[in-house]
């Protein structure tokens, strides 16, 4: 009865925890459903092949995901022949893929991802299976079968862009699936190495027998996948997308969980401070400390149960739409769908209850410590706003934050953001705890002019804020957090992105850069339009040095299928001119010339036991192998890959590779060198700074999206806390506001006072909130400029801050003026006089 009545009478104080828990649980159930649903799927392209034989995976280049290392052409042919001979197998189709993009109206359309080429041999259409909708299979070298959704009819002409450049084809037919299909002998020379052979199996064949036979054929040289296991054949790109999505989702959910605890804890704590009288009264009437604690727990549980129920329903209902949103944003692979299962929402519900109980824990302890006689005192004046634990906690947290800031200034680039985050967390926590000390002088300074104004509002605002120090501190704390985190996250991302870009720009000695436009990379035809140095990235493989094999991928060594290396094909002389960051550790860079030589980074040389002058055995992406001589060992990070090879070597072994950029000496741009760059298909000429800034544009976009999501979640939550604290504080001041009304103030004047007080709280919160990230951002800047040895500009995203502050201001004013208006509706004789609350 007691807690129920209390719940009814105190809805203002419980609204915040309710909304926080409701949103938190909604977010958690959505995330849990998405995480459970986010499993690898059998790629559509292989759906019709009962058995897949995939090449062995090699552990990824640091920072990427495991890839399959292609078989050699001979091995592929051998395997395909023997697999086709298995009883029950009607066909063994090697999957040959190459970069292809249609050009419609003079522009490349449907930009495919780098790791997901859309050109295939016609035979692999049977693996899906994609069937001819119109026309016939490609027979002649200039015939193509393509997706009917492109809207082209058999017999028509189409320009296809491949790694060599644009070429004209005749549409032979259309299929009911994505891709461009050429006759197999035409596709083979364009394609990268074969990594997968799909087996089409007769309906009456025994799958286990086929599987066993296939395993016997490939031996240790591959994996046989059947049924749901075939999901392992998904493109590594999808694995990566899903992984990024998971990171963002888990970060978001963890943040939501912690912030929920904070919101619940702070509103309940504030509630206890306001209800001391009520609790004192209950203690006088005979409530034990334990009963008060249980009262708080009951309230929290009731709020938690209702909030979590609403949250679970909301989260489950929104999960499919949110899943689609994630696919659009690039946080889940295309084709991802949310499966609704009962247990993830159930788990989220339980977590919601636990969060509510954790949040109320300290408040309940405080409630239990209320003395009986506190009912008799008018506790408006904060006599002791600082408790000892507040002092200790505040000083410790601030000291820790400052220490981390000092460490931050000397941290390595990878640690900078972590240190900044921890430092500002500690500083923010410290400032929040010390707020009762910091608020009076700030208030004093901020409101000094107010008392000199003729009206009563200024004086009231100033005196109220100075008197109720702890209330002012409590209400400005959420604002401090909101502003602090928004500025920190946005500022550190913007500053470090800018710093990386200016570092990269400083390292490139070129007039301008030809970059892809609407394509994943530059074709050879595009490269040829400008004089300059091209960068052609690819992946090669190294077998451990003791394996003095011929370089084919059959060596059964301890590390399995070898070590993948991020390589780049360049023109040696041109590269040396363009790269301003080159730092040769041993050997001679000028000895790097021709396809028999290579340059390696120190890190890779160490890993593989290579030294300048050594011969190195490499496996190429087409499955063949060869030897190169290490001309020079250079410092890590001084070249844009782990290994530099001659461009023609890379092109010869990776026919599908696309050029990342061409650096040209000309600074005059489109007009100066006689080439109309706008006419270059799928390319665009840009200045060096723009190139540096855009280089990781896709990556940056994801980082920025994740940043916005995190800011959104934390700012959203702290805004809830802000609104709720103000709502409670205003509701609690009913008596005081009525006294003002009775003293002759008009309703307008009282509301004006309330609004002005809210404005003051916002100003104090913003001022303190700007303090923390400024310290952290300055430290980030000095760390980055020391690391990169270039001046780094401090980027403070003003619009983000403005948006956050404006949003909070609107919310805060509504949350304080509206309840005040409701209170004043009763008029000066209003009945709130007797009420303790």
């Amino acid at each position, binding site marked *: *009865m007691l807690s129920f009545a209390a719940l009814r009478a105190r809805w203002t104080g419980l609204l915040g925890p309710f909304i926080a828990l409701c949103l938190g649980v909604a977010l958690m159930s959505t995330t849990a459903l998405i995480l459970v649903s986010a499993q690898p799927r059998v790629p559509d392209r292989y759906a019709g092949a009962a058995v897949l034989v995939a090449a062995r995976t090699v552990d990824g280049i640091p920072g990427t995901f495991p890839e399959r290392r292609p078989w050699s052409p001979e091995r592929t042919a051998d395997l395909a022949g023997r697999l086709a001979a298995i009883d029950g197998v009607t066909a063994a189709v090697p999957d040959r893929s190459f970069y292809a993009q249609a050009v419609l109206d003079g522009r490349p359309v449907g930009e495919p991802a780098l790791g997901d080429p859309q050109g295939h041999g016609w035979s692999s259409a049977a693996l899906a299976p994609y069937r001819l909708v119109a026309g016939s299979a490609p027979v002649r070298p200039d015939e193509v079968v393509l997706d009917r959704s492109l809207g082209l009819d058999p017999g028509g002409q189409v320009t296809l862009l491949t790694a060599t450049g644009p070429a004209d084809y005749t549409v032979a037919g259309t299929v009911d699936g994505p891709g461009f299909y050429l006759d197999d002998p035409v596709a083979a020379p364009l394609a990268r190495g074969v990594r997968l052979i799909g087996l089409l199996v007769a309906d009456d064949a025994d799958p286990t027998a086929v599987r066993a036979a296939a395993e016997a054929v490939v031996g240790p040289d591959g994996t046989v996948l059947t049924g749901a296991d075939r999901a392992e054949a998904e493109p590594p790109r999808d694995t990566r997308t899903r992984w990024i999505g998971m990171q963002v989702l888990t970060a978001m959910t963890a943040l939501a969980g912690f912030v929920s605890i904070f919101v619940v804890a702070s509103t309940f704590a504030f509630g206890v401070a306001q209800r001391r009288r009520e609790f004192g009264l209950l203690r006088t009437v*005979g409530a*034990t*400390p*334990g009963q008060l604690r249980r009262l708080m727990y009951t309230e929290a549980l009731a709020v938690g149960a209702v909030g979590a129920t609403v949250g679970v329903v909301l989260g489950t209902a929104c999960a499919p739409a949110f899943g689609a949103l994630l696919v659009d944003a690039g946080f889940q692979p295309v084709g991802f769908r949310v499966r609704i299962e009962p247990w993830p929402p159930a788990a989220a519900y339980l977590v919601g209850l636990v969060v509510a109980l954790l949040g109320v824990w300290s408040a309940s302890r405080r409630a239990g410590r209320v003395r009986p*006689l506190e009912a008799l005192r008018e506790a408006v004046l904060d006599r002791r706003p600082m408790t000892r634990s507040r002092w200790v906690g505040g000083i410790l947290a601030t000291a820790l934050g400052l220490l981390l800031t000092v460490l931050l200034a000397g941290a390595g680039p990878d640690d900078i953001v972590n240190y900044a985050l921890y430092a500002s967390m500690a500083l923010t926590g410290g400032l929040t705890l010390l707020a009762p000390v910091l608020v009076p002088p700030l208030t004093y300074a901020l409101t000094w002019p107010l008392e000199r104004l003729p009206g009563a509002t200024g004086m009231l605002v100033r005196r109220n804020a100075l008197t109720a120090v702890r209330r002012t501190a409590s209400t400005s704390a959420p604002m401090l957090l909101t502003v602090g985190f928004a500025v920190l996250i946005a500022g550190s991302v913007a500053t470090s992105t800018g710093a990386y870009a200016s570092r990269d720009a400083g390292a490139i000695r070129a007039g301008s850069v030809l970059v892809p436009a609407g394509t994943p990379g530059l074709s050879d035809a595009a490269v040829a339009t400008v004089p300059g140095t091209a960068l052609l990235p690819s992946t090669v493989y190294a077998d451990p040095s003791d394996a003095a094999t011929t370089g084919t991928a059959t060596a059964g060594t301890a590390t399995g299928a070898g070590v993948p290396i991020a390589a780049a094909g360049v023109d040696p002389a041109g590269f040396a001119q363009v790269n301003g960051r080159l730092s040769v550790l041993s050997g001679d860079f000028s000895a790097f010339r021709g396809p028999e030589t290579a340059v390696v980074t120190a890190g890779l040389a160490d890993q593989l036991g290579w030294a300048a002058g050594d011969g190195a055995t490499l496996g190429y992406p087409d499955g063949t192998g060869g030897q190169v001589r290490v001309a020079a060992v250079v410092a890590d990070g001084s070249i844009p890959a782990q290994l530099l090879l001659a461009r023609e070597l890379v092109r010869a072994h990776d026919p599908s590779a696309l050029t990342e950029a061409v650096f040209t000496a000309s600074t005059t741009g489109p007009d100066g060198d006689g080439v109309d760059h706008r006419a270059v298909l799928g390319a665009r000429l840009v200045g060096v700074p723009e190139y540096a800034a855009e280089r990781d544009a896709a990556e940056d976009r994801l980082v920025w999206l994740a940043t916005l999501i995190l800011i959104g979640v934390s700012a959203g939550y702290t805004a809830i806390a802000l609104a709720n604290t103000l709502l409670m504080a205003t509701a609690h001041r009913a008596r005081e506001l009525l006294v003002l009304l009775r003293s002759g103030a008009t309703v307008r004047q009282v509301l004006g006072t309330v609004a002005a007080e809210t404005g003051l709280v916002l100003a104090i919160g913003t001022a303190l909130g700007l303090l923390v990230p400024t310290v952290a951002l300055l430290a980030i800047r000095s760390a980055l400029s020391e690391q990169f040895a270039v001046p780094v500009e401090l980027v403070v995203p003003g619009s983000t801050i403005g948006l956050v502050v404006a949003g909070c201001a609107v919310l805060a004013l509504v949350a304080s003026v509206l309840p005040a208006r409701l209170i004043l509706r009763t008029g000066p004789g209003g009945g*709130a006089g*007797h*009420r*303790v609350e």
Partner: protein
Amino acid sequence: MAQRDGTTRRHDIARREETPDLTAAVRLREVVRAYGTGARRVAALDGVTVDFDRGSFTAVMGPSGSGKSTLLHCAAGLDRPTGGTVTIDGTDLGTLGETALTLLRRARVGFVFQSYNLVPALTAAQNVALPLRLAGRRPDPAELDATLAEVGLAGPGRHRPDELSGGEQQRVAIARALISRPAVLFADEPTGALDTRTSRDILRLLRTLVDQHRQTVVMVTHDPVAAAYADRVVLLADGRVVDELGGELAAETIAARMTRLEPAC
């Protein structure tokens, strides 16, 4: 004067301890309650020894700031003295933890404040039933009605405090203090906020409780007329018991004694 008081008091204690008094509901021995430390130390109670006998009606009087409220709070276990002992029904409060003390208060002590102190969210009847519910008991409706009737409140049980008059609220507060049949009922200026007529009703109610139910009542008041309803008046000044009046009490006698006391502080 302090010296002489001290000796008589010691004599008193000696005499009482020779013949263990089974009739005392509450005993205070050398109770000290000091606020602050060092130079700012204020002793609101400065060695008070007093007994409140079972079934007696005691009025505590004294100038403002003399420590009356503090005495009541210490005697009721709402506040803990800094020195001396308080015993309720033979239990030394100093030996009890916070929870045990609360349980004892809930069972043995009723307290009525000048400013009612009702829970605003609860109706009158719910306020009265609150101590029972806190004790984990389901209030018997008949018992509730009886208690409300006892304080002269039959009708407004369903109203919330802000819908009741001051006198009605004080009756609800008294009913709440009585519902658990406490050994002793403390009242701190229960009529301080009420008009003369309503005050008389409340005082007569307290008198009836003492006469008909042998309820022990200790009441703080400034009003000699109110004090005249009691069997005994304890006079406090500067945190010490300075005098006691007993027998037939007339308001005039009490008023005269009070006036003599005023210059003393």
